[in-house]
């Protein structure tokens, strides 16, 4: 599948050198684009295809009291700069007051802009999310953003391929988030380096598009450039009828192309990994990289258990930062904060699953819990379904859409020493605030943990 998408997007190629690859969709946000637009203008260049470019504001937007405007002067200037740049270059912007605003990787699929067989780039590493549709989607730096703005192409060396098969059937309470945390735990945080991963197997086929997006989203946390899942009826049903989905005869033509995308049986990959999905359990990270996780029934590991010296050293470092003692059962770790949000886990299905866990319950008195929907449309949908009432009645803060405390560029931030169960994608030191301690979990686990005040095995939560 990767080869098919790659080959159909090569504008020109050289022997052994890079290929010039056409970009079908360029997603833009406020943080990684201002210097690209400035560079473009300094060179007297224009945006080649504003109609294949779409922008939204997500990283720096406040998620509370938006009517008061953006109080951080730097964030305000950054967002105003994007508004100006889009206006000057004729680029569609889903701005802060637009119902289509949201996290860029939630917005693309929601609008039907993300479709199988496309190439999609964005100045954001979690662009891998869109691979869930059988698109080749990857994050780029600001120089490359400028290159795509000017030429609608990118010069890229062809990556290697890796297949990850997830066999079996997930147990109740085990989610897509647990699958990807389990995968990264197995392959390591640079296990996918230099590769595009293709995920398949019965567990992947049984997942919804939301679940598939969660998996592809965190491909980058396993070091891979991109993750892809073959499009099938689940994919087509999700795309059909969306604003930018093909209609009528065009839909039929598109279906023909998309149905031919999946990898042919017997195709070979540069590396192949197999995972037993039936054996997976809910995961919790204990360390400061997404590979450092254990089953919720497990305990904080002893660094001496690791064979490699580098892993031992990393574990010692992580436990000191996380202030955790080896041997402590994961469910005994008390929490201060819960963050339900991010491009990994803030789509409608994630909010439904989380709300299910807290109906008629109350957030633990020590815990400060917030829900940040992935987009304004997800927020509106959740409100129509009454999910906001469930969260608010339980004592959760119900916020506006944005990246929020996934990376804490806006006012949502952990205080030093605070411990947070988070549905986001990175537990790096200081990611959610200097000195903050992040544990990555599924939306179900985060919601139940908010009530219990500590991690819980959601398989027995009732």
């Amino acid at each position, binding site marked *: 599948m990767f080869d098919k998408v790659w080959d159909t997007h090569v504008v020109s190629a050289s022997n052994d050198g890079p290929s010039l690859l*056409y970009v079908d969709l360029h997603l833009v946000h406020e943080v990684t684009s201002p210097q690209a637009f400035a560079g473009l203008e300094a060179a007297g260049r224009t945006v080649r295809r504003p109609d294949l470019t779409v922008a939204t504001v997500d990283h720096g937007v406040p998620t509370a009291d938006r009517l008061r405007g953006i109080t951080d002067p730097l964030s305000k200037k950054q967002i105003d700069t994007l508004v100006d740049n889009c206006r000057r270059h004729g680029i569609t912007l889903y701005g802060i007051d637009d119902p289509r605003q949201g996290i860029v990787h939630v917005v693309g699929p929601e609008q039907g802009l993300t479709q199988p067989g496309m190439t999609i780039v964005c100045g954001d590493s979690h662009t891998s999310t869109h691979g869930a549709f059988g698109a080749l989607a990857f994050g780029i730096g600001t120089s490359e953003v400028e290159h795509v703005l000017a030429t609608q192409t990118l010069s890229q060396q062809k990556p290697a391929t890796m297949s990850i098969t997830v066999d079996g059937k997930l147990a109740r309470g085990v989610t897509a988030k647990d699958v990807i945390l389990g995968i990264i735990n197995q392959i390591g945080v640079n296990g996918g380096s230099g590769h595009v991963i293709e995920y398949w197997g019965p567990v992947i086929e049984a997942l919804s598009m939301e679940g598939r997006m969660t998996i592809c989203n965190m491909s980058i946390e396993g070091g891979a450039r991109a993750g892809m899942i073959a499009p099938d009826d689940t994919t087509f049903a999700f795309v059909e009828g969306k604003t930018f989905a093909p209609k009528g005869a065009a839909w039929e033509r598109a279906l023909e192309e998309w149905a031919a995308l999946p990898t042919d049986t017997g195709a070979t990959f540069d590396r192949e990994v197999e995972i037993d999905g039936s054996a997976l359990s809910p995961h919790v990270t204990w360390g400061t990289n997404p590979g450092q996780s254990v089953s919720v029934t497990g305990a904080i590991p002893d660094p001496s258990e690791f064979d490699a010296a580098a892993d031992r050293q990393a574990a010692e470092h992580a436990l000191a930062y996380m202030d955790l003692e080896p041997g402590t059962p994961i469910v005994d770790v008390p929490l201060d904060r819960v963050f339900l949000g991010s491009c990994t886990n803030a789509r409608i299905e994630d909010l439904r699953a989380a709300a299910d866990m807290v109906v008629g319950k109350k957030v633990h008195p020590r815990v400060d819990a917030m829900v940040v929907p992935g987009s304004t449309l997800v927020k509106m949908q959740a409100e129509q379904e009454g999910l906001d009432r469930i969260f608010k009645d339980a004592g959760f803060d119900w916020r506006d859409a944005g990246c929020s405390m996934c990376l804490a560029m806006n006012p949502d931030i952990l205080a030093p020493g605070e411990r947070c169960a988070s549905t986001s994608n990175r537990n*790096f030191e200081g990611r959610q605030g200097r000195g903050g301690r992040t544990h990555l979990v599924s939306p179900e686990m985060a919601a139940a943990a908010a009530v219990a005040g500590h991690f819980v095995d959601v398989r027995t939560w009732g």
Partner: protein
Amino acid sequence: MEPVHSIQGVAAPLPRAAIDTDQIVPKQFLKRVERSGYGPFLFYDWAHDVEGEPDPDFVLNRPEYLDARILVAGPSFGCGSSREHATWALQDRGFAAVIAPSFADIFRNNAYNVGLLPIELDQSAVDALLEIAERAGTVTVDLERQTVSSEGIEFSFDIEPHIKENLLSGIDPIGETLRSVAAIDAFEERRPAFRPALTD
């Protein structure tokens, strides 16, 4: 981009594994719209105490490393976020090359694009260079010959021929691509019409 030829200067050691771009430039410094001036934010949380005062014990705050030009680091350097700010901050602080056993893919691309040289060497070579860096020794990188040398030892590194050529000539990659504009036009002619577009 300025051409890159040879780099000679003090090497600084930072042997931690998986130094992510959130550590290289924490997010609170990504709100600026400028491309320059990120040097003071490099490794900010490691270089400063909670009050924002420089921590004299952090390696890059030590006087012998103030003019360091080459950073010697652990594996998976630059993993995580795609922020090019990480490369800008390293350059702004005076670094022209990073030597590590491995780099994250996006960081490596960003580095090449801004003319910061990411040099991959095996762990034993990196260990030898770390030892020299611990003494604030001088290291020389010769891009033309693809070598890293210091105090009588020399290591060779790999680099894609076209990237090497681009770095040596200081090419403008966008200008280069725009020379193929006819090929892009032709490609657009044959794109499927059902692909989405944001037309008014």
